[in-house]
């Protein structure tokens, strides 16, 4: 394990140090440096302090663990690996992500999972333990987004306009979603037991990471949302 003190380091020299390291790394005193571990494929990185925007952008197999909050665009365009955040995250997490996993114990800001996609065996997964902001899964094209709403009794599990432009992938919300308005091109419905099987391994992983009782978490109504058409743009063209 290599210890790196991020104090006084800009994002470029910090990332150089990470790349040069031939072992797993622990970063301390991190304060806003961007692009940490961008594109990395082989290390495990533990961060104390607040990492800057685009944490783990283009991540390609490395594993990142953040002990505090993370800022905007966590896992931007990530391809493989995992990012675990023990606090909350900012806006646009998992932007255009096409593989790997993001686990967040707290809340997510606006536009989590915007334009997540999937390709063959690449299926990205994002699990948010708290509540998500508006435009969750905006333009979602693939992958799985799970929001658990734990410890968020006072808050709505998701803000306004979830699934706007969604045309692929799947979303699980641990709620009956009675007061949530979805757009017309998606079909929210109560998750059947066999549908929940798909989300269960990821929820298990989340619970063991953050110390929750899986059975208690699963013992709640879930809503599953998928797009209802193979051609969501159909309504935008003149039928002839």
């Amino acid at each position: 394990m290599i210890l790196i003190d991020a104090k006084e380091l800009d994002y470029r020299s910090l990332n150089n140090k990470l790349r040069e390291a031939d072992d797993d790394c622990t970063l301390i005193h991190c304060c806003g440096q961007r692009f940490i571990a961008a594109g990395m494929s082989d290390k495990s990185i533990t961060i104390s302090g607040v990492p800057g925007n685009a944490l783990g952008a283009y991540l390609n197999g490395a594993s990142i663990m953040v002990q505090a909050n993370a800022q905007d665009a966590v896992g931007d365009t990530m391809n493989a690996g995992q990012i675990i955040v023990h606090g909350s995250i900012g806006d646009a997490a998992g932007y255009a992500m096409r593989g790997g996993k993001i686990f967040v114990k707290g809340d997510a800001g606006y536009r989590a999972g915007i334009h997540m996609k999937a390709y063959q065996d690449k299926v990205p997964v994002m699990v948010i333990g708290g509540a998500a902001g508006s435009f969750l899964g905006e333009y979602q094209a693939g992958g799985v987004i799970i929001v658990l709403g734990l410890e968020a009794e006072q808050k709505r599990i998701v803000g306004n306009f979830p699934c706007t432009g969604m045309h692929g992938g799947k979303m699980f919300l641990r709620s009956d979603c009675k007061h949530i308005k979805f757009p017309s091109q998606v079909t929210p419905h109560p998750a059947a037991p066999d549908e929940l099987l798909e989300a269960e391994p990821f929820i298990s992983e989340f619970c063991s990471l953050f110390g929750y009782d899986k059975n208690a978490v699963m013992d709640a109504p879930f809503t599953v949302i998928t797009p209802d058409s193979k051609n969501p743009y159909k309504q935008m063209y003149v039928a002839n």
Partner: protein
Amino acid sequence: MRIEGQVRIPSGCAIAAVISRDGNRMPGDNITHAMEPMHDRSNGLGGGFAGYGIYPAYKSFYALHLFFDQRSTRKDCEAFLKERFEIVQSEIIPTRKIPRITDEPIIWRYFVDPLKSVLSSMQLDEKEFVARTVMKINAEMKGAYVFSSGKNMGAFKAVGFPEDVGMFYQLEKYEGYSWTAHGRYPTNTPGWWGGAHPFTLLDYSVVHNGEISSYDANRRFIEMFGYKCTLQTDTEVITYILDYLVRVQGLTLGEAASVIAAPFWSTIADKTDLEDRKKHQFLRTMFSSLLITGPFSIVFGFSGGLMALNDRLKLRSMVIGEKDDKVYIASEEAAIRAMEPEAENIWAPAGGEPVIVKVREGAY
């Protein structure tokens, strides 16, 4: 030299602010440090600060901060000011020569009191008179710009990175109960001294991260009421809109926020509180030309408080934190941690949700 496009400049403006709810005054170097972790959000073409409570010895006078292109402009402008105000103090704003700030204009400040005879002959209240004078100088006096005009507050701005601008103006020598800060990355308009944030009028100031799509619609509307947009950038119009809504029309800050970052009609229609629904319908209908579209996160400063606000789609980041009597606002949590490593209750307000923090009555 490689230009943008050949080289990626990862920028996007930065804002930060701090206020003491107990009115405790803080030197300006802490807010300057807040801008350091956000350095890459700016590109060196503008930085600035506003401090409130910084001129206690002159608190009953309007503090006019001006840029002049040359000495003769200053002389002409002073002659003009003398026709309208009693000038109780006139001085150069002290600056520190540093290599990273160059080409500075002549930077001067005046503490003034409007002449009662002029006020009564023009039949204007004091604030309206000062606002009109500021507009007149900025629009008609070539080479002179008033960039700050409130009581017991002041804006300090320049072309440069904000950390350097704070150093240039020696902000550690001022103490304010609230501060706002801005690092600029100009997208559509020139990076010049007058175009740096904050944009101010009277004691109102705005720092803004974003880009207003509705700028010209807003400008044409607000110019009907005597405001003149002369500073070649979009943020200026936000200051005038808020001055119009809050000072002239008498709206509350919350109502003004509902005008400029109005909820969608569908969101209004879904409101279960009928009074609230009616109020929002009224505000959107009455002030439809003052809806600001496009991405923004702003901090609006005024005597005794701050208001933070995001555009309704929340296309820019903004987080809030607190510690003891202080509330912190910034584009990034890292900036809050730079001011107060132990800040608590970090949260991000929703799009269009104003966060209003006021100093305890009587404490400023």
